[in-house]
């Protein structure tokens, strides 16, 4: 085959060129940078006509349509170009989208600049398939280490869709309630609202939905809160440590079917979450609830079970017990030391230890903890406490001590508040609770003695120097600024490292100098096979809960890959790799909307106990706050569309696609400024046309055709097809539910039962969506297995011919295309000869019935009537199929020849371009005196000359000559005046083309050449489908048909008493006017015989009774 042509731009000129070139038998690639076809010039023709043109292209066997596609580079080579196309993701599969609009309804995001949803298609746009507007990942979503589709759940909350929001969060992380309280919310830090006023209160929104679920779960039990325990895959994984990292690993793996046991050294769930975070920040019931939810999924948690040389089991034991992998998530529970004098005095405690004691004495009512606490706070409420450090632990200690009734608590931090790792809101609340904070102050030594304990603390003021390795500015002591504080208790809370006790023996696990477990950065594997590590144990104390969760997810995927023998890539969502979306904000969006402040417990009330300080949003507050979101994506990946799409057409993971093509010629039918010289050089083989002028498109098509090597099939093939359809009818009935668009009105089961009993019906099946590839596959299978030779498909397609009309739709065309209806029969033949004959649908006769628009939609309010009508239509079509009879079609060898007439320069241009395509051309300057059709050709004769041609071009120099030439045709087609199409080249007579003298002769001559080339290709003619056939014996030679035919198709042939009508299949347009007018009913219309029409009408009228029987 030749290399084909590339058309850039689905403008009117572009689609015209594509059609002409493809009709001539050359492969065409049409690219359009927008998601929908039809840019320039589309408005100059009526919309419905434009639609049919697009659909004609969509169904054309020689055309590939590329939407969302740009030309990225072009390299010239001998005889053509190597081009590279860049197809941008649509995020919707064009082979699957049914255009039902369910996704649009489900989408919570309205794009401010356009008013469209983030997933949308403009009404009437082609292809009628949705597109997702996604510039990238929203900044909040990309910032989230846990991989939550942040913007998505905010958008859902903004619509009051709390359950969906909750489910979306739970899909990503197991601890929505916990994160909703203690998350360090990198999302908010990256929120683009910070450019305007303040970030959306994302953490609070997350908290809100989890609280809402608790209140509503009994009413709406969700699949997240009531999970199904997945089917076990038989493999077991042990996780050591029940903190956020470990539990995330467990939860992700249990979802994949592994059986999980989590071993926890402490007697409480949740590791550092429970031990290190006070209840006023994270109420214990929140922890309990979320851990129970994970347990319900099948994760077994064994508390107070230490792993290690001193514990119940060693790692070796675990492997012996049958665990296939072990994940160490032991956290960092060993506090760092100050390394200053007096650090070992009684009265110096580690922050995390103190918190543990306070928390355990609170929640477990543990007497030993109470005693320890009593001992530490040896002066009771008079104890003066200095807390060293600026992390959340320091603040948690301070605020907890306040709640224990200790008034004198200071926080001492060596840098300023900007460098502090604790959250700003934490700092604010702590200050509200009257805890003084000494910034830029470092401890120098602790005073006291072994008996009395601590008595004081010497500190020094600091100043900030150059940034250190963490990026924070290094504190430098200010000489001579030392001062002393009187304190009874010093709490050291400057960070922790993992407690690697369990690794004391040589387990083959490498521990770094800074006391971390060394793992591979991507596989999380330690040096020991089957042992993985995750969380603070790997990073030391640098992780927030959400980071631990994020790491847990990656580790789980890595463990899964390991246990699958690395057979698969880790199962991770690839949407994580998307760039961050950063779109321009509209002036409207830039107007401030203040953040809804979080209601808190008044300080006077909160210090009495450990009651939660933040009270949470109300529904209205949450919705209002969520509505502040700017929809940066604009798609927020809330996945509501995936839930809504019954056709599974949505592919959020779609990526840019690079396509390399070998191209013979290029037509640029759009704005030239769009492409740089590198993308699109100047030169031979590249044709540029004005986008809105279809005539120029045709002209360019002719030049392309003339420039390409001739390797096209040039003869009309014989039309013999595989299996013999003259066998008795074996009808397969397929009823489409259209997702639900049909089934919710039309009772498809009744329809199936009704159809199944009709004569000739072998089977009747319900299919879900006829326009999806698997439906075609199912039909193919049934045809093969049940030896079906006729198929009735009741769906939304109505035309049983291979035509498209203005009410057609992309999906209908796609449906027929996947059933092979538009594949040219000559192309089908090789397949028929192949071994898999039965796979081919070429021998199957199809009949389509539209039960969607014609039944389910127009009778939406009356399901009974809709079903009755659907049944009647289906029964009619089945009866029609039953009476289908094989009609042998004529094979006419058509020459590649053309007769060109007229004195315009267009004639010679047309002739030259056609000669290059090896078309035999003849030129007659004067109109021939005689003109007629015979044997599938135009015949003309003059006194001395005689012509025979498959096509005729008239190229008059002026209107007077035009009239003379047209008059020639009146001989051939009696009284009918020649009409031309809106472009002005094609006439109503097939094979006759007209170069309007009023138009530019170069363009119109070339355009006519393109039309002739297309006309001479077998692709444009499929005799038999619609051609009327005359019965010679029933013909009375009355010429009525000749009178009524607009196309000059009927001719009288034969002599004297044997004169009868013959219908030229090439000229016949299939309108059926002749059949309707023939007094002796000698003519049968192509689409249906009288017998079939009778049976259809009778069946439809009598169907009601049958239907009632089957109801």
């Amino acid at each position, binding site marked *: 085959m030749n290399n084909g042509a590339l058309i850039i731009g689905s403008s009117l000129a572009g689609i015209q060129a594509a059609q002409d070139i493809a009709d001539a038998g050359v492969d065409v690639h049409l690219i359009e940078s927008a998601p929908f076809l039809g840019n320039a010039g589309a408005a100059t023709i009526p919309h419905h006509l434009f639609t049919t043109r697009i659909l004609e292209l969509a169904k054309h066997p020689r055309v590939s349509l590329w939407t969302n596609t740009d030309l990225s580079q072009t390299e010239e080579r001998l005889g053509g170009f190597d081009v590279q196309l860049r197809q941008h993701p649509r995020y919707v599969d064009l082979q699957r989208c049914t255009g039902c609009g369910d996704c649009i309804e489900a989408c919570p995001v309205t794009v401010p600049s356009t008013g469209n949803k983030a997933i949308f298609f403009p009404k009437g746009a082609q292809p009628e398939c949705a597109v997702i507007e996604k510039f990238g990942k929203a900044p909040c979503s990309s910032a989230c280490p846990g991989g939550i589709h942040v913007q998505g759940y905010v958008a859902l909350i903004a619509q009051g869709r709390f359950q969906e929001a909750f489910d979306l969060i739970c899909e990503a992380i197991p601890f929505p309630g916990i994160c909703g309280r203690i998350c360090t919310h990198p999302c908010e830090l990256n929120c683009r609202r910070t450019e305007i006023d303040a970030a959306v209160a994302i953490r609070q929104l997350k908290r809100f939905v989890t609280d809402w679920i608790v209140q509503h779960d009994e009413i709406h039990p969700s699949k997240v809160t009531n999970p199904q325990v997945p089917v076990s895959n038989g493999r077991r994984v042990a996780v050591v440590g029940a903190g956020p990292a470990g539990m995330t690993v467990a939860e992700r793996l249990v979802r994949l079917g592994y059986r999980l046991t989590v071993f926890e050294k402490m007697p409480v769930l949740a590791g550092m979450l429970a031990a290190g975070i006070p209840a006023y920040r994270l109420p214990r019931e929140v922890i309990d609830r979320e851990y129970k939810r994970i347990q319900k999924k099948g994760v077994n948690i064994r508390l107070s079970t230490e792993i290690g040389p001193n514990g119940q089991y060693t790692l070796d034991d675990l492997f012996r017990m049958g665990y296939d992998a072990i994940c160490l998530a032991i956290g960092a529970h060993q506090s760092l030391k100050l390394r200053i004098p007096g650090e070992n005095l009684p009265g110096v405690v580690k922050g995390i230890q103190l918190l543990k004691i306070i928390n355990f004495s609170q929640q477990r009512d543990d007497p030993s903890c109470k005693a320890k606490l009593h001992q530490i706070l040896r002066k009771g409420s008079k104890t003066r406490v200095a807390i060293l450090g600026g992390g959340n632990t320091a603040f948690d200690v301070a605020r907890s001590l306040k709640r224990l009734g200790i008034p004198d608590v200071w926080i001492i931090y060596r840098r300023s508040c900007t460098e502090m790792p604790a959250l700003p809101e934490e700092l604010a609340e702590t200050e509200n609770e009257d805890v003084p904070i000494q910034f830029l102050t470092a401890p120098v030594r602790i005073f006291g003695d072994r008996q009395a304990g601590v008595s004081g603390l010497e500190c020094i003021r600091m100043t900030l120097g150059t940034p250190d390795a963490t990026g924070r500015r290094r504190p430098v002591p200010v000489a001579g600024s030392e001062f002393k504080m009187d304190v009874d208790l010093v709490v050291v809370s400057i960070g922790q490292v993992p407690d690697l006790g369990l690794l004391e023996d040589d387990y083959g696990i490498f521990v770094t100098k800074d006391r971390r477990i060394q793992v591979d950065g991507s596989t999380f594997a330690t040096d020991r096979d089957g042992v993985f590590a995750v969380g603070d144990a790997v990073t030391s104390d640098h992780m927030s809960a959400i980071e631990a969760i994020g790491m847990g997810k990656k580790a789980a995927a890595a463990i899964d890959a390991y246990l699958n023998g690395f057979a698969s890539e880790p199962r991770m969502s690839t949407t994580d790799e998307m760039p961050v979306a950063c779109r321009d904000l509209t002036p409207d969006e830039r107007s401030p909307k203040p953040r809804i402040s979080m209601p808190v417990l008044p300080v006077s009330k909160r210090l009495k106990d450990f009651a939660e300080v933040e009270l949470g949003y109300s529904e209205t507050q949450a919705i209002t706050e969520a509505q502040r979101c700017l929809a940066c994506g604009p798609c927020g990946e809330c996945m509501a569309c995936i839930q809504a799409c019954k056709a599974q057409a949505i592919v959020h993971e779609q990526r840019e696609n690079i396509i390399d093509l070998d191209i013979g010629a290029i037509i640029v039918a759009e704005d030239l400024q769009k492409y740089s010289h590198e993308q699109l050089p100047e030169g031979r083989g590249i044709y540029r046309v004005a986008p809105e002028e279809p005539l120029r498109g045709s002209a360019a098509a002719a030049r392309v055709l003339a420039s390409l090597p001739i390797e096209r099939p040039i003869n009309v093939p014989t039309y013999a097809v595989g299996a013999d359809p003259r066998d008795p009818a074996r009808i397969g009935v397929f009823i489409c539910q259209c997702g639900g668009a049909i089934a919710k009105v039309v009772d498809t089961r009744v329809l199936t039962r009704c159809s199944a009993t009709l004569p000739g019906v072998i089977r009747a099946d319900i299919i879900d969506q006829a326009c999806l590839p698997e439906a075609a596959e199912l039909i193919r299978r049934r045809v093969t297995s049940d030896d079906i030779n006729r198929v009735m498909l009741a769906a939304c397609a109505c035309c049983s011919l291979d035509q498209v009309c203005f009410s057609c739709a992309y999906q209908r065309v796609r449906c027929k295309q996947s059933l092979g209806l538009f594949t040219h029969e000559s192309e089908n033949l090789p397949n028929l000869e192949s071994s898999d004959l039965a796979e081919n649908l070429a021998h199957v006769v199809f009949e389509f019935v539209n039960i969607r628009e014609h039944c389910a939609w127009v009778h939406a309010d009356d399901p009974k009537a809709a079903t009755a009508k659907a049944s009647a239509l289906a029964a009619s079509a089945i009866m029609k199929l039953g009476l289908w009879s094989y009609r042998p079609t004529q094979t006419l060898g058509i020459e590649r020849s053309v007769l060109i007439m007229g004195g315009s320069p267009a004639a010679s241009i047309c002739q030259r371009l056609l000669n290059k395509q090896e078309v035999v051309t003849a030129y007659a300057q004067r109109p021939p005196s005689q003109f007629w059709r015979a044997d599938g050709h135009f015949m003309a004769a003059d006194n001395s000359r005689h012509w025979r041609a498959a096509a005729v071009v008239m190229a008059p120099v002026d209107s007077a000559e035009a009239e003379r030439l047209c008059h020639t045709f009146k001989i051939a087609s009696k009284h009918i005046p020649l009409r031309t199409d809106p472009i002005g080249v094609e006439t109503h007579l097939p094979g006759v083309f007209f170069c309007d003298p009023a138009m530019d002769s170069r363009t119109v001559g070339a355009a006519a050449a393109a039309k002739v080339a297309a006309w001479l290709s077998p692709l444009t003619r499929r005799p038999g489908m619609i051609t009327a056939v005359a*019965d010679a*014996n029933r*013909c009375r030679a009355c010429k009525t048909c000749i009178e009524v035919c607009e196309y000059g198709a009927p001719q*009288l042939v034969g002599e004297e008493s044997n004169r009868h009508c013959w219908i030229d299949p090439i000229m016949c347009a299939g309108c059926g006017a002749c059949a309707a007018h023939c007094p002796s*009913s000698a003519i049968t219309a192509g689409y249906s015989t009288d017998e079939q029409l009778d049976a259809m009408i009778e069946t439809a009228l009598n169907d009601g009774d049958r239907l009632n029987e089957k109801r």
Partner: protein
Amino acid sequence: MSKLKDIIDRNRAWYCLECGKCSAVCPITPWETRVYSSPRLLVEKALNGNLENIFDDPLFWSCLTCKRCSELCPSDVFFSEFVRDARQLARSNGRSGDCTHGEAIQTWARMMTAPDLDQSRLEWLNKDLKISDDSDTLYFVGCLPYYDILFRSLGIEGVEIARAAVKILNALGVEPHVLHDERCCGHDQIWEGDTETFSALARLNLERIKATGAKRVVTTCPECARTLSLDYPKLVEDHGLEVMHLSRFIRQQSPDSEMNLSLQKMDGTATYQDACRLSRHLGVYEDPRALIIATGLDLVEMEHMRHASLCCGTTGWTSCGKVSKNIQVERLREAKATGADIMITSCVKCQIHLKCAQQDPELGQELSIKIRDLTTVLADRL
């Protein structure tokens, strides 16, 4: 339903001598070019007993039942009746002829079987035409108003014939009954084997005719005359009514050639087309001829005339095509050959079929002759 054997017995097919006289005169035989077919051969096929062989014979469906063959048959085989009865059998086997005009006319007949069908049947009556609800005589209009619609473009006389008939009856001092809810007589149905529709139509017609109290039925259509007088009594009910074609009625009313009608004399020559139903079926040959002569026209006969006359080429709106056309062309050429100014027929169907053939654009002048119904020719002279 009769078996084939009964049909053969009843119609004396056993007596066929295979002499071939029928084949020599059958109007179809010379024109049917697909396969050789003739009445004799069809009878032979019937005697061999294979139904499909009979039904597949083109003649079986295109037979005009014109009785031309019966005129010559030495054994008195009822060939037309045999075809009629066998078509009933064929219909019960799911076979039927090819209907013309998209089966519109057959459909009308079927629609007319509805007992309470509302037809505007009397729109054609002018105010100077007198009808009466109290008369011994009923004028049976037949399908004229329907054909008027379908074949107007051929330039046929449709309701003009009905008007002429009432005008003549009035001139004879008769104010006839005309039914406002008359049905098709069922002629085509019975000859195409559709007895069910025929019976329904016949019952409805008889019911209505009897309700008028009329003793006599006059028709302008030979088919109606044949069906009401021969087929109704035999197949539906012995109604005891006197049924006749208008030409015979006129002659009965005024046996002498002057008649009670005072006809204006006219010049010119006319030829007469014997309608098969009126002539060979009912034996009416002289009455129309006498009436033509009474108008003063010179009557010239065609090559085939009276008992040997050539049919108009189609019956029952079925199996029309090349064969029919050729018969019609042949007949029109015979008419032209007489040199007559006008061809007069007594049957509207003859007029329709022959006028249709005259539409042939190629044969043009060769077939052009004025064709009129006897009734309208007479009425014009009143």
